């Protein structure tokens, strides 16, 4: 539930207490100030998932690739074996 959109951290503004830590996050050319209170490991250059003004997760870039690797393998397999029977 929940519209959460991935964006890249471009700047971090330290609020002192982690609860007030805020960053500038870039969403394909738009920048918004986002609370980083829940992603202490977020750094400039990393991608975070943002929901209602809060970063809720740092995106694991290796995992993000996984489905495309799987599809590539599948595609390669198809070439070897011919069409997968339906």
């Amino acid at each position, binding site marked *: *539930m*929940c*519209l*959460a*959109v*991935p964006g*890249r951290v471009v700047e971090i503004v330290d609020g002192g*207490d*982690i*609860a*007030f830590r805020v960053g500038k996050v870039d*969403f*394909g050319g738009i920048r918004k100030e986002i*609370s980083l*209170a*829940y*992603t*202490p490991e977020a750094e400039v250059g990393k*991608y975070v*998932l943002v*929901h*209602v*003004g*809060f970063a*809720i*997760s740092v*995106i*694991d*870039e290796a*995992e*993000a690739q*996984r*489905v*495309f690797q799987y*599809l590539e393998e*599948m*595609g390669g397999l198809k070439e070897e074996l011919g069409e*997968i*029977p*339906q």
Partner: protein
Amino acid sequence: MKFLSEYRDPKAAEQLAQAIRGKVTHTWTIMEICGGQTHTIVKSGLEDLLPREITLVHGPGCPVCVTPIDLIDKAVAIAQRPEVIFCSFGDMLRVPGSSKSLFDVKAEGGDVRIVYSPLDALKLAKTNPQRQVVFFAVGFETTAPANAMSAWQADHEGIENFSLLVSHVLVPPAMEALLSSNNCVVQGFLAAGHVCTIMGFEEYFPIAARYEVPIVITGFEPLDILEGILMTVTQLEERRHEVENQYARAVRREGNRPAQNTIAEVFEVTPRQWRGLGEIPASGFQLRGRFQKYDANRRYPSSGEPARESPECISGLILQGIKKPHECPAFAVKCTPENPLGAPMVSSEGACAAYYHYGRRQNHELVQPELPSPASR
């Protein structure tokens, strides 16, 4: 946009769809929990790519839809007070209460404002010390950390003209309630990816084991949902019932610990009314301890007027996935987004609204049969 656009790639979608078609030997009914997933499915016409053996049913994953009517009435009553600035997410504004919605209150001159984040509401409280700012804290577990932080910061900074009207609902208890029902048709679940980003997915293991259903934590883009369906179907065909994580780029098994800690500090678990489903034990949050002073429910006593519901809306059956929106006799006839009979028609995440706006479908075909059949099978 990175980590978004790639998951809408048509070739990859067709590949996954083909893989699904290659797997099925049986009919299967799969439920996606989250309204955001429903939205993607209907908006991208994803069902057109699936083999007919797969039926998708839409679950109660729309916190707007399941907010009890007496809470809407309470919100309306509070918003009508002249000293109050009532803040809410956009979705809640059109949900009908017993006699009116927050939108009606706004039309009549009430100070009702849409905010993007609960911290925006807190900011309003700081810049308007002579007014009372009330924030409608609706959502699943995904939104709880944000709402909790607004209460936490308010307490930290000693802000008193701020309160939360809390309507948080929790997903695993709802899943259990659905699964324990005699009418349950669901054989596999696509669990709500963003909820699990916060809470992790430990809670799903006992559910998968007890009810012998596969549960796949799934994301929100078309490729995520297709992959989630593929993983679920694979388990079903292999007679497995495990918990798997499709959305691993965002979800870890233990979830987001700092968020969970703040939730635990600010909220406690309570039984909760789900509109259309009734009371589910241990399925909601309320403010606890020193944060109870921010509970708008306490600050503003109820008028005592009973909430009035009518029997025509079948949202309960819709939310359980037993009926599809177009199977409701009122759908698109008496019940439309302009004149909704129930919350699922109003909320942009609601199944009825999704069906109304994006496709009035029956058995994989649009209701008008002259439409040429879309993607090749």
